[in-house]
């Protein structure tokens, strides 16, 4: 029951151009724009279905349009009439579209054939056609015009059946009663005509300005006990130009009708009205009013009797553009038309500009009084000719999309630490990490650099750089170290790096492995070194599984092609390197690892050294280390001298350490399989 509300076409305003949804399933939306083109859009795919330019489109622009009702029911025998309410599905193809022009002619356009079907001229109007209404059943067409006349056309012969003077001024709007026997016309007053005799049945004092829309809102009278003559008791609706009130009238049995029964208030002049007919008393009438200001007001009301106060809308729908950046504020997008879908629960909204409108189905399930939809229609301006022919839509694939490949966290379920305790510890650690201020970090860095200055030969060396980079998360510093291709250098660096940096390094490597395959090649060398050299250390960690879970998944997915072979290969390499390493280290000077904290007990030096090593081995973590360093800052300062003193002894200790590391390496051969199996 969509009807063109565009009685008055204002070429400047986008709202108010004559437009209408096709009846029943609303598959099409016809819009006659100010440039004289008729465009028919498919509502489901938002595609331009066809475009038609009447030959006289410049002199006689289209002023109103109306879809012909689907012609199915006309053929049915009366006893089957019940089925009228049933949707006919695919077979109710709508075809004819009537266009009224500014010069008084009426064109019938066939949307199926895409050509002009017929032209109704002879004996018709000689001024602007204001409104066209199709009769539901008998194929008649009613039109009214500025020439004060109403004309009844026979569309089969394309001839005038009857023509009568409708008012003393121009007749602006028409509406046919639900039973098809009466006609409402609006000129200076609203008149109800009996179609058979063309006599005035009722008068209604209308609006102060020309009525732009008329519409019956009910098909059954409110009081169902009384005998129904087809018209008495029905409500209808009227809207007028420059009037922000929609009036509801009731056809009463008594003759004189002075005032409207009730009224709806909207924010601006209504340009398009659609409603769902209420079929019984309980069902409310749903009304969607598109105003000139581009908003839609929704009303839901059970019509019964008088109501003095104008009713305000239950829901207002607005559409705005997204405000991009800082400068542009969201701008409203005008809504051109709104039509209820056949399920009465959703609304088809047409918005944007009239030459490229967007049609969207909006569900009406929200109870909120104001709906503001943010829509980006900027890309709708691009020509869509290609899509129109090929019907291919390309969804957006931009770089912002997340890519998951095997091995990246999220591709496989994260390996969660089995005991819940560790989780707590982790969270605590995190908190502790967060508490660290930048100042404090800088402080620790300063201390580091101070130390570096102290022993110059080490400043530029890779292990230190690496450790610093990992601590400070300095991308450039890490790059400098990790992008080396020198295998020996890598080996030495790994060997000399502080143990506490092993886990952070592994995590960093994991992160980098997920990146570009080219860079991953380098990282593999590092990873290999770290795993071979520090396997023993890693195997001692209690929370290894959650910490290196992603690395494990990544490795597994990367070596999937020859899984068993690469496992064997890995194990052999591990064995061989460690054997050779143990042989080599006998002759090599041990990498120096300066203890960060030396805690001296009364007992001998050797013992204390061992203890510290153990400590760091057991649960050495980045954050913990930082905590410790925090705590120990004071101590450090105090002990600095002592440390310096002990440095001398380090050379001696070196040999001891060598032994220790050798022990570890030898012990590895036992631990090794375990480690591997963990990784598998």
């Amino acid at each position, binding site marked *: 029951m969509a009807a063109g509300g565009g009685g008055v076409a204002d070429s400047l305003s986008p709202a108010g151009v004559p437009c209408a949804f096709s009846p029943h*399933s609303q*598959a099409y939306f016809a819009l006659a724009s100010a440039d004289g083109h008729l465009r028919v859009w*498919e509502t*489901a*795919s*938002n595609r331009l279905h066809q475009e038609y330019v009447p*030959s006289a489109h410049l002199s006689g622009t289209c002023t109103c349009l109306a879809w*012909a009702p689907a*012609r*199915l029911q*006309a*053929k049915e025998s009366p006893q089957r009439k019940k*089925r009228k309410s049933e*949707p*006919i*599905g*695919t*077979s109710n*193809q709508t*075809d004819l579209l009537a266009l009224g022009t500014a010069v008084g002619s009426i064109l019938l356009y066939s*949307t*199926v*054939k*895409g050509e*002009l079907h*017929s*032209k109704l001229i002879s004996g018709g109007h000689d001024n602007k056609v204001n409104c066209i209404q199709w009769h539901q059943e008998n194929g008649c067409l009613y039109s009214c015009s500025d020439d004060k006349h109403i004309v009844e056309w026979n569309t*089969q*012969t*394309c001839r*005038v*059946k*009857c023509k009568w003077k409708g008012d003393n001024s121009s007749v602006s709007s028409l509406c046919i009663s639900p039973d098809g026997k009466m006609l409402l016309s609006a000129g200076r007053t609203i008149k109800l005509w009996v179609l058979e005799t063309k006599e005035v049945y009722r008068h209604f004092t209308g609006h102060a300005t020309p009525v732009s829309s008329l519409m019956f809102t009910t098909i059954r009278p409110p009081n169902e006990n009384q005998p129904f003559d087809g018209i008495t008791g029905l409500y209808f609706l009227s809207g007028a130009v420059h009037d922000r009130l929609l009036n509801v009238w009731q056809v009463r049995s008594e003759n004189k009708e002075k005032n409207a029964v009730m009224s709806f208030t909207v924010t601006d002049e209504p340009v398009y009205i659609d409603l769902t007919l209420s079929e019984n008393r309980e069902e409310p009438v749903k009304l969607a009013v598109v105003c000139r200001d581009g908003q839609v007001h929704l009303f839901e009301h059970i019509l019964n009797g008088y109501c003095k106060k104008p009713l305000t809308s239950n829901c207002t729908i607005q559409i705005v553009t*997204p405000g991009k950046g800082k400068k542009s504020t969201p701008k409203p997008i005008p809504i051109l038309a709104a039509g209820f879908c056949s*399920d009465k629960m959703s609304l088809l909204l047409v918005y944007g500009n009239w030459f490229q409108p967007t049609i969207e*189905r909006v569900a009406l399930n929200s109870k909120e009084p104001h709906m503001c*939809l*943010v*829509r*980006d229609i900027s890309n709708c301006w691009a020509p869509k000719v290609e899509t129109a*022919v*090929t*019907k*291919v*839509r*390309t*969804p957006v*694939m931009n770089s*912002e*999309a*997340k*890519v*998951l*490949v*095997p091995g990246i*966290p*999220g591709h496989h*379920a994260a390996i969660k630490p089995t005991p819940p305790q560790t989780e707590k510890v982790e969270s605590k650690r995190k908190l502790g990490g967060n508490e660290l201020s930048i100042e404090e970090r800088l402080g620790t860095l300063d201390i580091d650099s101070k130390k570096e200055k102290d022993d110059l030969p080490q400043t530029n060396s890779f292990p230190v750089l690496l450790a610093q980079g990992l601590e400070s998360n300095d991308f450039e510093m890490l790059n400098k170290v990790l992008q080396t291709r020198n295998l020996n250098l890598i080996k030495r660096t790994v060997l000399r790096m502080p143990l506490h940096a092993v886990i952070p390094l592994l995590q960093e490597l994991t992160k980098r492995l997920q990146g570009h395959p080219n860079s991953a090649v380098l990282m593999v060398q590092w990873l290999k070194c770290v795993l071979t050299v520090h396997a023993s250390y890693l195997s001692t960690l209690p929370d290894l599984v959650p910490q290196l879970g992603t690395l494990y998944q990544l490795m597994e*997915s990367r070596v*999937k092609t020859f899984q068993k072979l690469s496992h064997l290969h890995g194990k052999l390499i591990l064995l061989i390197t460690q054997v050779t390493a143990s042989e080599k280290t006998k002759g090599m000077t041990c990498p120096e690892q300066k203890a960060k904290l030396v805690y001296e007990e009364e007992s001998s030096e050797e013992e204390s050294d061992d203890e510290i090593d153990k400590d760091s081995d057991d649960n050495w973590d980045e954050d913990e280390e930082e905590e410790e360093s925090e705590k120990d800052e004071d101590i450090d300062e105090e002990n600095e001298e002592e440390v310096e003193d002990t440095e001398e002894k380090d050379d001696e200790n070196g040999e001891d350490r060598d032994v220790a590391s050798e022990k570890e390496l030898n012990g590895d051969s036992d631990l090794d399989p375990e480690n591997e199996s963990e990784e598998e």
Partner: protein
Amino acid sequence: MVEEESLRVVHCGGSELNFRRAVFSADSKYIFCVSGDFVKVYSTATEECVHILQGHRNLVTGIHLNPNNHLQLYSCSFDGTIKLWDYIDGILIKTFVVGHKLHALFTHAHAEDSVFVIINKETPDIFQLVSVKLPKSSSQEIEAEEISFVLDYVNQSPKCIAFGHEGEYVAAVRDFYLSVYFFKKKKTSRFILSSSRSKKHAKNNFTCIACHPKEDCIATGHKDGKIRLWRNFDDDKKYTYTCLHWHHDMVMDLAFSVTGSSLLSGGRESVLVEWRDATEKNKEFLPRLGATIEHISVSPAGDLFCTSHSDNKIIVIQRNLEASAVIQGLVKDSNIFTGLVIDPRTKALVLNGKPGHLQFYSLQSDKQLYNLDIVQQEYINDHGLIQIELTKAAFGCYGNWLATVEQRQEKETELELQMKLWTYNKKTQGFVLNTKISMPHEDHITALCFGNAEKSENPTLVTASKDGHFKVWILTDDSDIYKQAVGWTCDFVGSYHKYQATNCCFSEDGSLLAVSFEEIVTIWDSETWELKCTFCQRAGKIRNLCFGRLTCSKYLLGATENGILCCWNLLSCALEWSAKLNIRVMEPDPNSENVAAVSQSSVGSDLFVFKPSEPRPLYIQKNICREEVQWGVFVPRDVPESFTSEAYQWLNRSQFYFLTKSQSLLTFSTKSPEEKLTPTSKQLLAEESLPTTPFYFILGKHRQQQDEKLNKALEDELIQLPLTENIPAISELLHTPAHVLPSASYLCSMFVNSLLLSKETKSAEELPDDIDMEEEKESEDSDEENDFTEKVQDTDNTDLGEDIIHQLSKSEEKELRKFRKVDYSWITAL
């Protein structure tokens, strides 16, 4: 609802359009194509179906315009009849009963009242081209028994037979030879290409043929992609041929333009090639047509071409090789892996479309909405290439999420899998890729489902795979400090004893997940992902799995490959009931408790509708189709129906659609067949009355005079018109700018005629066509009586005393309309 109306299976989804060459009407306004048992008339301008010509009882195999009256169309069918149609109004004029199974139909202007058909008489594989004389008779149904033999041992495809210019000869190809039959000489010439097994000539087979419309020249297409142009073939010795070679694969069809100046060819490359002047150098291409070109046809007016493609579409192409319209049915090229899915947003049916695309098909308007390019790779249509296939698709959260799975498998071990998760962006009204997961599983993904719980803030997706795992993917906040983003990550991986996961589905409230591992069904708690219980029936692998809905939500249904349907009670964890039924498709109705199951038997497919709570079905329809049903889906209705009959109540809120192996989409309808006829007859609503133009004044009047002449001869009724009537028309002609006038030679004879005949004119302004139309309608459909009488009244009302309506007989009226059309055709062309 009237009780006696029974539930019928009806086709929907624009059945096959590419079976035979499409045919243009004389004015290129309409295009005809065969579609199952029907002939469809489409408008070339709007792509809309104007009429469906129905009446054949079996597959329609050929259509051709009547060469003697271009407003009529011949069609032939496997049911052994040739029917003559008036396609403007969609009316069947005549039926000629031939009796044999007709495989193709040909007509040409020089064979007076006879048509050519291909039949097979004795042995099943031998086809003959025969001419059938169509007897003239006024009756509706005529026996056409006068059959004369033309050519034996022809190919059954109409592409392999062509008639030469002026109808002097007919050429047919089969395998390695070309035979030409000359009607005048009654002689057959035969030209054989070498068919040796050597590599060079192995693919010399003829595939199609076309004859030049003006010259003695035959073009043949070959399997190796060559086109040969034969000349001088009236001489067995002196014949020559030239080769054109561009196609690298079989030439599927050939067509000459109307003037014969260019030759069109197409094949699997999906490129339309236009050979100008039949030379190899002058080629024009129209590439990227999407799918293999199966047929090419040319409009008689010469302004349009059209190509029929293997993906069930017809592309209308302008003379300058620009596609102007696409008539697209349901895409049927590829296999349907995705099944039938309903997009909750648009209520459109979603399934595999073009290669690498998802097609959105509107069931309400029976039209394709669009294809969504998922794979986004240029499709190279070549034999033997292994393409990326779209295997799964699912919508979640009211259509806000779309998950797709694509795969490409070259060898057994080289599987490439990719899962994409698209989000619907409301701002731009389109899908945007959110997460791309490569190799989500190590083996084929067998099932994909969203947890459609009410709490939409936490969407969940489950994939089941042959690698023995099922993975739960959840949407997580992926935002780091740089961007606010959400993405999908794997939350849980489940498995059960290394069995392959075959199906998965969520319960209605989303609290339980059922995953079937071959024979075993496992139930998981969707909050904690704990295994709750397992069901095992040891009755074969589970093929379908679904939870009951609404009041039956405590039931779980599973259908196995061994033909057992089981229903488990989730509260008691026990088998409730089981039935022996070989179920192919099982679909729950989202709006009710009902479940539809289609079972396969040796005879055909049967439909059962039941509630899980009771083992007795609500409704059984035996033999819904002969083929295997592959997929089915319930589509919620916009407006609920009100079937009172208990058997049909399951159709009240949803409609059941199913797809067979041959990819025809079927559904159930209770509407009587007559109702389906209406689209054709409702077009009669209003008679065309075209606006008057200056030419109309000149020629229209003349036409009327001619009509009057006829009328006079028939009814001897004449009204004198003043002689001056013609003079303004003449002056108008003289004052009209010359450049808008038709050529003088065209106008001259008519103009002179009009001067000569000016005495026998009358004032009647319009043709009495409307009345005739009504007559026809009346004879067609007696239901229309009310309408008719009303119309008569109408004309009475409007009759202002100047019109006298003439009653014409049917044949006269046909004649008249023909005249009228002749005049119109050039007016509208201007």
